[in-house]
Each structure stands twice: as C-alpha cells, then as structure tokens.
C-alpha cells in the first residue's frame, strides 16, 4: 500500500502540474518565464513550453496511464476480483476528478478522431496478427452469424423497442424519431473487443467459447461501424426521402463496405508478405513494415469509406504466417513484442480516458426511462439473440454449445470505447438528443465493463463453465491429463481429422502450390520441406549428442588447461582476427571472467545435485514432483496457442520439445527398422541398455556442464544443449559463435541449416578439435569435418542405428524424395574399414555423425529447390580421403 500510495501521490502531483499549467493564461506565463529574454539579447536558458506543449502533454498522459496500470497491477489480489479494465476506468474517474477540481472544466477527453486514428488501429492490428488462425477459421461460421445477424438483431430490436416505449410514453418528452433510435441502436449494438478481451483474458474459459465471443466482438465492430454509417446517412437524408431504392442501396453498401474492407486488408497482407521476401538486408527496420503497412491498410480502407477495422484485422490474419516464416527470428520477436506494447498501451489509455471523459458536467443529460430501458433491452436482447442463434447453429454443430456457455456468451456482451466513439461522432445539428445518447452510452459502457466484468468470474465459477485449465491433484492425474492431449492428437492424426476435411485440404493445396511459392522465400520454403526437416532434426540431434559426449570427454581439460586455451586462442586468432577482431576481443574478456566463476561453481553444483538425490527419498518431496511434472511434461501439439492474449506473448515455447520427442521416436524407429531390414530382431536388452546409458550420460553431462565446461556461460549450457533455442543461449555465447556460424556457412554454403545448429555443432567442433589437437599435435585449424571421419561408422550398430543411410530409408519419410539417394563415396564402403585405434579411443559414435551435416544436406536436395550443390561437394573432395589415424595419446604436443 505504501508503494502504491507514493505512486498515486506522484500522479497527483503531475496532474496538478498539468492542471495548473493548463489553467494559466498563456501570455502571463510567457512573461513570467520568458521575461528575461525580452530584456537581454541572449538567454542562456529559456522555457519553451508552448513549443513543446502538444507532444509533451501526449507523452505525459501516456506516462500517467501507464503508471495507473502499474499501480493497479501492483497487487494481484485486487485484480483477481475486479478486472483490470474496470480498475482503469475507475482510476480514470479519479484523474478526471482531479482535472475537474483544478480546471473546473474537462480539458481532456477521448475524441473520436484520436480514438479511431491512433488508439484503435494498434489494438486491432494486434488481434489480427496474433489471431489463433486455426481456431478462428474453424469457428468462422458461428462467429459470422453472431457478428452479422446478431448485431443487426441487437440494433434493430433495441431501436424499435425504445421507439415503442417512447410512443408508450415511458420516457417523457423526447424529440427522437425512429431512425434516430435505430442509429442509436446500431452504435450501441456492438460488443467491444477491447472490453471483452480485458475481461475474458482473466477468466479462463474454454477455447471455443473464447473464440466465439472474441471473434464476434472483433468482426461486429466492422459491422456496427457500417450500420452506423448507413443509418447516419438515412438520418441525414431525412425520413420522408427514404424509399425502397435507398434502403436497397444501404444494404448493398453494407456488404460492399464489409467485404471491401476485408479485401483491402487482404491485399495489403499479401503485399506485405511479398515485401518480406526481400527485406533480408534491412533486418533492423523489417518489423516496422508491419505497423506501417497495417496502418496504411487501415487508412486506405478509411479513405475508400470501407470498413477499416475489418481491413486491419484481415491484414494481420493474412500476413502472419508468411512474414513469420520469411523474416528473421529476431524481427519476428520484435514485431510480436512491439505490437503488444502498442496494443496494451492503447488499451490502457482508452480505459483511462473513458473514465476521465465521464467527469464532465457538460455532457451529462439524464433521462431515467431512456437510460434504464436501454440497459434492460441491451441485456435482454443480447440473451435472446445469442440463444436463438446458438440454437440455430447447434442444429449443425457436432459439439453443441451448451447452455452455460450460451449464458456466458450473452453475459459477455460488453460495450466499450467503439460505442462511445461513435456516439460522440453524432451530429448534434441533426440529432437533438445527442448528449443524452452519449451519456447513456457511457453508462452502458460503465455498467457492462465494471458490473458485468466484476461479476463475470463468479458467474463462470457458479455455472461451472468448462474452463481452459483446471487444477490437478494427483500425480497420475497430472500425467494423465497431459497424456490425454497427446492421445487425442494422435487419434486425430490417425483418423485423419484435418487432412480429409475437403475444403481445408483444397485450401492447403492451393496455399502450398501458389501462395507459399509466391509469398515465401525460397530458403524458407525449402526449410518447410518435410524431408529436409527430418534430416535437419536428425542432424540437430547428432550435434546435440555430440555436445553432450564431448563435454564429458574433453572439454573439462580443455577449459582447465590454461595453456591449451591460450594456444587455441592464438591459433584461432591467427585465422580469424583479420575478419572479426571485435569478437576476438570478446573472447579474451570472457575467459578471465569465466575462469573465476568456474572455480566456485563446482562445489556448489555438486552439493545441489547431492541434495536433490537426498530429497528424492523423502516423502516431503511430493510438491517437488508436482512442480517438476508441471514444468516438464510435454505439451500436446494443439495446446500451443489456442488463446489470444494482449498482454502476454504466446510464443511457441515448445518447439524444442517437439524436436526432442521427434528425434527420440525417430531414433527408435530407425533402430527397429534397421534391425528389421537386416532380419534381426532388435535385442530388447540392448535397447534398454542404450536408453539407460543415455539417461546416465545426460545426467553426467548435466553435472559436468554445470561444472563449468564452457568458458562463457556455465549456467546456460545444460539447457541450450538440449534445447537449442537461440533465446536460451546467452547473448555473449551467441555472439562469440556467430563468427563460427558465419564461417561455417561460407565454407559449406549451407544456408538453410539453422543458426543454432551450426553454432552448436561448431562449438563442439572446436572443443573436439581442442582435445584432438592435444592428441595429434600439429593439425591446423581448418574447419573441416573430414579429418574426424575415418570410419567411425563401425561403431554404429552398437549404438543402434545411426547410419546416415538408414535415416533416409525410413519408409515414413520416403515419398517426398524425388531423387535417388546419393550416398557419398566416402561413406559407401565405410563398413569395411576396421575400427582404427583412434576410433576405439575416441567417442564411439559422435564424430562421424557430424559428417552427416553436409553429406546429408547434399542428399536431401531436391531437384528444384537447391542449387548449392557444387560448393559443398568440392569442398568435401578436397578433404578426402580421411587422414591417417594418428596415435592415440600424445599429450605433450600441445604447447
């Protein structure tokens, strides 16, 4: 409370500041502050308030709104009961009160121009860009029904009922005609996406319900703006002059506006996708295109008097897949981040200003009958509309939407800033009761956002609506719940749930053949190629295993041996300094830093491990187990992004899991396949043994890596070993090895191999090289794989099937290969090579796996997509035949 209080005080102070300054007559202030400049010729410091006033106020307001949010989010048990949006409105009340107290007039309010031009676009762009596309399109039918028919129904029924009530004399003497009632109905009919999201984000309802409410709110914004424009035109036209032709024109314009807007967005989205194909060289400003093009799409639609909201929604929806694939990972991250910043900021401002706008005597006109009847009708007709439409939809839906869900859908009909913005846009010259409409709209907004928002959560609980996630009590439950997800996904895959859906299948085909071809970069498309993916994964796996194994074998000495390190550095420096001096400097710095941390780390880590083992026996460890499970259980595929959230990133964090699972399964398949092909049943014991061994190895490797293997970032190593996600790697780590990656790419001309793969691989190569250089002495530091390639394949059968060829021959992944496999010549007779001494001494299987990086790359190339064949091939030839096996131990040669 103390902290919150102080911040509030600060805000209060800043508000007073604004208020006081705003109040002062300008001339007076000028004299007061700038008086000195009139007298003397040159002033050293002068206050140029008027010069900076508009942007300064804007920036200050943004700051104030953000601080409001900060205060509100400071304590969680308040936001648990009251949605953030309601609290923001309330803080708007307070701020507005302060301004009113200082100025006696409301200086700041939300103007429709600002709202529609600055606040709304980023929010809608965010929703479009992070839309869970699959969920959205599978439920599109229902969403459209609700968005179009439901909104029309709401508008018409409300307008007519109010008109009827007026004729019945329920609200006294009002000068409002039927058309104006309909206009009012249309502006207040739409459910507001901003308000809905803000509430539903905190109430975790099931995904279908969520997308229904959310999608409806998003699309009906477009609908309601169109309706509003049509009715506005009618009102301007005046009752007597409306005939059938005008009405038909109105209906036509409705469709033109809605679909035209979507089309504009679609076109801009495709343009953007095309553009993103060639922004490789301007990666820094790449993300900016999203905002500029999105905004342009919005403004273009606005200019053509089409639906701007629909335009920007579809812009985001269309381009997201292609740009996310085309652009650099960092750019995508930046976009995802920035779009959230803008959207969340705009949302905060909207709510705060909605609150501020209320504190203004001049806008309030009260008419009890009108206000209460509006509230009542809105609620009733919303329920009626939703129930009827859902009943209609349930006739065709396989999984009907049940009654509790329908109640929540109806109750979730929150009105928001769009309605307010439209209401303010009304022309007072034509509509006499504009003030009443504005104040009624405000009341409706407050009522729905605050009251319905607050009661939403209890209602959801009370009705026992299916929630997105539930607490799990027993361990087996936890495991099983996760298993269910996997099982369902597997069953869906087996029963072909998505593949055989005719329309979608067609769309996928079309997309693959045309859209992707045009809109995706060739390199990206290639990466999407299934066969290549498989090899990529396998290679990744190999590189990772190699890292693990290498950690255990050589790198400890590698690090501890200072002289060796220096030697390595020197060698490396000779080769690389020319091109990358800055990175060399980095390395020298990090080494000293790392060596200090390294010494401390060993005992503490081992202690920790020991402690964990001890704890394992205790019964109190139950909590731990729960936690462990919670964190590490693989997530089901479809779980990745089914929710939309404005304030959280939904980056798919589980890709690594998939990779890992995939590699494991692939491995076991390869084993069984290989043995099956040879006519030998896979000896169960061996498999088990391998697995166990693997586990053990992992364990030791984890311990070892924690014990300071890498000079740069000891803590991050174990994770990045298993999860080669660049974000997990330390920055320094990444920077240091960027050069390796670059070099590696130059040498092998491998474009499509992911950065992190090469980087892992390279790091390892280096370490391996290090340890090797201690063995063989005078090898130079060429980045070759060939020198480690002398016949290690002989050890494969023992390890269980990592023969390069076997990977390709798996029938599961065959159909897409259109070229016969090219097993490189140096691999063909590999079985005949007797295990050399070195092979027996060295890691049994890893080095030769490394070689697969490039040979397999060659073999995966399909006829159309890959034209880099020559470079790797030539290079390989240079390095072969493999060097003679050096004697196993010659430690003395290093220095």
């Amino acid at each position, binding site marked *: 409370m103390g902290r919150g209080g102080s911040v509030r005080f600060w805000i209060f102070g800043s508000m007073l500041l604004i208020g006081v300054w705003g109040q002062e007559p300008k001339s007076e202030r000028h004299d007061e502050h700038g008086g000195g400049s009139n007298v003397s010729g040159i002033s050293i410091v002068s206050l140029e308030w008027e010069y900076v006033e508009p942007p300064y106020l804007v920036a200050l307001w943004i700051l104030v709104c953000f601080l409001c949010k900060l205060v509100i989010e400071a304590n969680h048990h308040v936001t648990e009961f009251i949605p953030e949006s309601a609290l923001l409105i309330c803080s708007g009340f307070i701020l507005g009160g302060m301004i009113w107290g200082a100025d006696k007039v409301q200086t700041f309010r939300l103007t429709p121009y600002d709202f529609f031009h600055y606040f709304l676009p980023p929010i809608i762009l965010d929703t479009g860009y992070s839309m869970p596309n699959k969920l959205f399109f599978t439920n599109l039918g229902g969403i459209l029904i609700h968005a179009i028919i439901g909104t029309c129904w709401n508008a018409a029924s409300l307008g007519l009922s109010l008109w009827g009530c007026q004729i019945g004399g329920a609200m006294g003497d009002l000068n409002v005609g039927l058309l104006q009632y309909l206009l009012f109905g249309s502006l207040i009919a739409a459910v507001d996406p901003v308000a809905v999201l803000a509430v539903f984000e905190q109430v975790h309802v099931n995904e279908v319900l969520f997308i229904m409410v959310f999608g409806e709110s998003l699309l009906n914004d477009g609908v309601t703006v169109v309706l509003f424009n049509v009715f506005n035109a009618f009102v301007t036209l005046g009752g007597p002059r409306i005939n059938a032709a005008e009405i038909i024109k109105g209906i036509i314009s409705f469709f033109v506006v809605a679909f035209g807007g979507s089309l504009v967005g679609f076109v801009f989205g495709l343009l953007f996708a095309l553009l993103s194909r060639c922004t490789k060289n301007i990666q820094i400003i790449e993300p900016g295109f999203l905002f500029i093009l999105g905004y342009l799409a919005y403004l273009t639609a606005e200019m053509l008097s089409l639906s701007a909201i629909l335009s920007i929604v579809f812009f985001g929806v269309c381009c997201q897949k292609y740009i996310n694939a085309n652009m650099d990972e960092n750019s995508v991250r930046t976009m995802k981040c920035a779009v959230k910043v803008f959207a969340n900021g705009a949302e905060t401002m909207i709510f705060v200003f909605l609150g501020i706008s209320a504190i203004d005597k001049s806008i309030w006109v009260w008419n009890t009958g009108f206000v209460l009847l509006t509230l009542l009708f809105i609620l009733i007709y919303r329920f009626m509309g939703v129930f009827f439409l859902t009943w209609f939809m349930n006739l065709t839906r*396989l*999984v*009907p939407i049940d009654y509790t869900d329908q109640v929540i859908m109806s109750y979730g009909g929150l009105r928001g800033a769009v309605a307010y913005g439209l209401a303010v846009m009304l022309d007072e010259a034509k509509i006499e009761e504009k003030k009443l409409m504005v104040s009624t709209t405000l009341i409706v907004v407050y009522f729905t956002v605050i009251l319905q928002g607050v009661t939403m959560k209890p209602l959801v609980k009370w009705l026992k609506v*299916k929630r997105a996630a539930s607490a799990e009590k*027993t*361990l*087996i*439950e936890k*495991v*099983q*719940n*996760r*298993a*269910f997800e*996997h*099982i*369902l*996904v*597997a*069953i*869906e*895959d*087996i*029963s*072909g*749930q998505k*593949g*055989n*859906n005719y329309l979608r299948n067609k769309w996928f085909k079309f997309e693959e053949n045309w859209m992707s071809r045009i809109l995706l970069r060739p390199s990206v498309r290639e990466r999407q190629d299934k066969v290549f993916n498989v090899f990529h994964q396998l290679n990744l796996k190999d590189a990772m295993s190699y890292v693990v194994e290498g950690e255990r074998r050589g790198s400890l000495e590698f690090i501890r041996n200072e002289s060796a390190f220096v030697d390595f550095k020197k060698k490396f420096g000779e080769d690389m300094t020319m091109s990358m001096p800055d990175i060399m400097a980095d390395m020298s710095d990090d080494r000293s830093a790392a060596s200090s941390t390294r010494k401390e780390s060993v005992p503490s880590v081992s202690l920790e491990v020991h402690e*964990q*083992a001890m704890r*394992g*026996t205790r019964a109190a*460890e139950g909590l*731990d*187990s729960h936690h*462990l*499970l919670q*964190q*590490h*259980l*693989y997530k089901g*595929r479809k779980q990745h992004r089914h929710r939309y959230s404005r304030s959280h990133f939904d980056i798919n964090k589980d890709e690594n*899991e*998939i990779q*890992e*699972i*995939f590699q*494991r*399964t*692939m491995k076991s*398949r390869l084993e069984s396949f290989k043995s099956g092909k040879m006519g030998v049943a896979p000896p169960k014991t061996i498999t088990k043994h391998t697995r166990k061994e*693997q*586990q*053990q190895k*992992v364990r030791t490797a*984890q311990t070892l890596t924690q014990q300071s293997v890498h000079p740069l970032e000891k803590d991050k190593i174990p994770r990045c070993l*298993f999860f080669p996600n660049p974000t997990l790697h330390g920055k320094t780590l990444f920077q240091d090895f960027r050069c390796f990656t670059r070099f590696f790419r130059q040498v092998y001309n491998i474009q499509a191999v992911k950065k992190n793969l090469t980087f892992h691989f390279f790091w390892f190569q280096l370490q391996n090289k290090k340890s090797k250089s201690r063995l063989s002495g005078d090898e130079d530091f060429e980045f070759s794989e060939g020198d480690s390639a002398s016949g290690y394949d002989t050890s494969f059968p023992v390890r269980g099937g990592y023969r390069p060829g076997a990977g390709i021959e798996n*029938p*599961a992944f065959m159909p897409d290969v259109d070229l016969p496999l090219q097993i490189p010549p140096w691999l063909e007779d590999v079985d005949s090579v007797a295990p050399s001494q070195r092979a027996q001494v060295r890691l049994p299987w890893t080095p030769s796996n490394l070689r697969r990086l490039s040979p397999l790359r060659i073999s995966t190339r399909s006829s159309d997509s890959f034209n880099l064949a020559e470079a790797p091939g030539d290079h390989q030839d240079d390095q072969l035949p493999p060097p003679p096996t050096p004697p196993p131990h010659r430690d003395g040669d290093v220095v």
Partner: protein
Amino acid sequence: METALIKYLCRFIKNKNTKTDNLILFRYSFTEWPDVKESSIEATFLQKSSRHRLMLSSLTQSAVLCVSVSSSHLLRLYERFESLDRENRGHLRKEDFQAVRELSMNPVGDRIIGSFFSPGQETVDFPSFVQVLAHFRHTENDRIRDGAQKEPANSTARRLKFVFQLYDQDRDGKISRAELLQVLREMLGMQVTEEQLQSIAERAIQEANQEANQDKDDAISFDEFRKSMEKVNIDHKMSIRFLE
C-alpha cells in the same frame, strides 16, 4: 448421402473378404441409417449377388457390435482407412500408422499405435480400427442409445480401461513401477534426470495407493487408477469431433 452410403456398402462388400466382423459392421451401419430404406439396400445387394442377401439376414441374429459411430463417420473413417492402407491390403500394419508424420512427434504415439493391435496380432482390420476409435466418440447427443445395446465403447468405464491399457503394456491388470517409469520417460524425456523420474513414479504409486486405501504393492491396479482419476472428466478429455 443415401447413395453414398449404399455405394460405400457395396464397395465394402465387394472389396473385402466378407468375414463376420465386416458383416456386423455392415449391419450396424444399416441400423444406424434410418433414412435408408431397408428395401433399397436389399435391392442393391440382390443385384450384386444372392450371397450378400443371405448374409444380411444372418446378420440380424448375429451379435451386436457396440460401435457407436454413425454412418457418415464410418464412411469418413473408411476413407481414412483406405488412405492409410497404401498397398490396399485390407488391413493396416504398424508401418502404416507410423507413416503418419505427426505421430512421430507425439510422445505417446507409439503407444497409441500399439493400442490398435490386440496382443499377438500384426494387423488391424477396419472394424477393429473403428472400434478403437469409437472410444473417442463424443458422447452427447446420442440418438441411437437403446436399452438393448451393450455398453458402448465410449462409456466412461471403457474409456478408462482403454487409457489404463495404454500404461499396462503387459496386460497383467496392473501398472507396474517399470511401466509407469516408461511412460514418464516418454512424456518427460531428457529434461529430467533418472532419479527424479524414479521419485516421481514412486510418489505417483504412493498417491494412488493412498487414494484407494488399498494394498501397498509397487503397482497401480485398475481400481486404484480409477479412483485417482475420479476427478478428471474423462468424457470431455477423451472426446473427439469426428468430422462428417
């Protein structure tokens, strides 16, 4: 749709060696499709051969298969079955399942595949394929439930049993510690050390035993499993919308 069904039935009869399983299935589809006039089907079959006619009548007396999958689903599943069965053998083998690419990403994929095969069998034909999938059919809106039928495959108990058998690979009625460990290993992978896995397994077994107040053996029996899963809404978690 009617013609589609008839076409499918005809193809079904024509392509397959008519075994009892198929006939049961056939009969099932027939009863599940009230719009299709019995006479129209019979007529079609009469044209084909009198043998089918005979079988049709024998079907009415044969055992009822509790596959609660409607005909349009059957049709779709059959298409899927055919697309999986690339060499047109009329049955599926493990390799056919493994050819589904997404399955290889799935940590329990191999177990699921295994569950399609009854012990000792190398192949699975269409009726058993459907029967396994029927466990996942959505329960609500069941128009076809009449008292005469046996418990359908998608009842809670049978679903539980199905899940239980995913764990219980040796089918001895118990999830042994080793079996549980195996599952955990598949679902947690290398992220967790073996000791941690061990302790989780131990803990899970303890919990299950406590929950059911039962024997303190080193395994989870079906009863214990059921008890510890009581709070989970199996019907919701194990339902799939089979597309029409």
